[in-house]
């Protein structure tokens, strides 16, 4: 491998990890700060990617749109579309038990995947959508990926600072209070449902942004890329490893887990091709083991959580909603 080869790989790596870090931040808004159990990340990610792709690709006879709009429009619309989906899911499910939300979100993610897979008129079906533009790619030539990386980092940084501000504000403290004990929060006059909805939608918007960034980076998307377990699951591992409730942890976790994931790919690449496909599944096993190991031995992740909430609101040890007695 040449120096340029290594460098270009590192740029690729940092960009992909950055996109996942955006997803991880989105999940942190929902789960880390508000305790919303979303395991439909892949669905929000896909909606963002497809929205952006349909709006920005040149007109096509085989599927919807191809509106040739600027990438910026695609990016914003991706967030909006994904946020809208979050709103639609949230309204019926956020009053229910947290595990019902989990089942509902995975259901929605699967539904979205089935739709993109089966409705060829919409987005090319299983053949997917190609030719998603990155406007300056041709002009920039070999340095295009550098520029894209800079763009991803800039967006990641902007999101990070915006979220840090937001989550340290009174609004953010209410979110955490709800996660700690929704009854106490409700008793102090907070509209728990509205705050939850806001956190779900905001997280959805951020995930939609990530989808757009992904689509324009790889230039081609298909339902295959949004298999729920892989996209959703790895983000969960990232946030758990980094430390949920901590934006820094969400980003570092994303880079770290993506590094582990990529390194295992190197290892399997050395194997003869007959074994390589099978060994690839061992990579996923490793990630699964990592998740369980973190849950068992370091449940707060690498960074743990920054405390903004009074310690008096102690979490009940079983996590359930037991009746407290006096």
């Amino acid at each position, binding site marked *: 491998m040449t120096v340029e080869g290594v460098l270009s790989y590192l740029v690729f790596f940092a960009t992909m990890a950055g996109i996942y870090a955006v997803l991880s931040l989105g999940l942190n808004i929902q789960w880390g700060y508000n*305790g919303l*159990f979303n*395991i439909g990340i892949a669905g929000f990610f896909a909606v963002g990617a497809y929205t952006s792709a349909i709006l920005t690709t040149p007109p096509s006879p085989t599927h919807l749109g191809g509106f040739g709009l600027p990438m910026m429009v695609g990016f914003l619309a991706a967030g909006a579309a994904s946020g809208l989906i979050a709103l639609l899911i949230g309204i*019926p*499910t956020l009053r*229910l*038990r*947290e*595990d*019902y939300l*989990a*089942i*509902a979100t*995975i*259901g*929605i993610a*699967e*539904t979205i995947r*089935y739709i993109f*897979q*089966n409705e060829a008129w919409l987005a090319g079906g299983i053949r997917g959508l190609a030719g998603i533009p990155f406007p300056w790619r041709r002009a920039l030539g070999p340095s295009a990926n550098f520029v894209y990386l800079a763009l991803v980092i800039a967006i990641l940084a902007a999101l990070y600072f915006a979220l840090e501000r937001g989550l340290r504000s009174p609004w953010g403290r209410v979110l955490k209070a709800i996660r700690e004990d929704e009854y106490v929060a409700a008793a102090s006059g907070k509209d728990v449902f509205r705050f939850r909805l806001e956190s779900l939608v905001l997280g959805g918007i951020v995930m939609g942004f990530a989808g757009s960034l992904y689509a324009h980076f790889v230039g081609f998307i298909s339902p295959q890329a949004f298999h729920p*377990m892989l996209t959703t*699951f790895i983000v*969960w591992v990232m946030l*758990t490893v980094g430390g949920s409730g901590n934006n820094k942890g969400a980003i570092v976790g994303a880079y770290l887990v993506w590094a582990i994931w990529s390194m295992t790919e190197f290892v399997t690449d050395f194997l003869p091709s007959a074994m390589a*496909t*099978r*060994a690839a*599944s*061992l990579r*996923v*096993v490793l*990630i*699964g*083991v990592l*998740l*369980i190991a973190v*849950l*068992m031995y370091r*449940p707060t992740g690498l960074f743990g959580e920054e405390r903004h909430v009074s310690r008096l609101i102690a979490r009940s*040890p*079983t*996590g*359930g*909603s037991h009746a407290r007695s006096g």
Partner: protein
Amino acid sequence: MTEVLQVILYGLVLGSIIVLGAIGLTLTYGILNFANFAHGDMMTLGAYFALFYRFGLGWPLSLSLVAAMISGAVAAVLIDKVVYRPLRSRGSITLLIASVGVALIIRNLIRFVWGPDNHYYRRGIQFPIRWMGLRIKPDHLWILGVALVLVILVHVFLRYTKIGKAMRAMADNMELAMVTGIATERIVVWTWAIGAALCVAAGFLLGLDTQLFPDMGWNLLLPIFAAVILGGIGSPYGAMAGGLIIGMTQELSTLFISAAYKPVVAFVIMIVILLVRPGGIFRTGGAVKL
């Protein structure tokens, strides 16, 4: 009309597979209070266990099923011991996340050992029996028969044995079960074993109906959850009814919309139930806590 009857037959077949999956899921959900996302992959694992006994060891198919059920039960108890039990005090959501990890581990180990391709229990085409205009595959009769026998066994077990009653009691009200002096940890082991054995049977029958592939169980997980929620979490009898309803509705929907959307149909029913009767359609009151 014949077409509808044919579809109803398919609905019964799919429904009985979902029923077997749903009984185990509802029991662990009710008793341990967590949604086990590895349940679908346990189904897959069971199906592949049976494949191993059938072709690896050359045992007859029926014996392979029984052996696979036992192996699945042992595997589930071991997984509980290694993964879930140490995390149990940390709440249902931690367990749920862990089960997602277990799901991926199981599925990818299967992919590693058996590869991504389809496998079959039987070679060659089965000629359907013609009866009143219906095409009935002999395998379908097997599926219905095995499912019926197992459901009856489950019923007898839950109604008339001490362990069965304790299981239902724990699914109903865990704290009271502890107050009553039930040795809850022992019953938990039984619950995993029986739930997994039924789930393995479901995977086997699914493989018999179609084919074995690493995602087979995962694809059925949403309909199984739909059945559990429809019947009320922790209620094995609700799960039986819920499973039949979901299976039947999924197949009947193919008369109107693309078969590719069968899983979506289950999901839509589930959302409607969550909105209208979150305690399930047979709720007897008091069983559901929020």
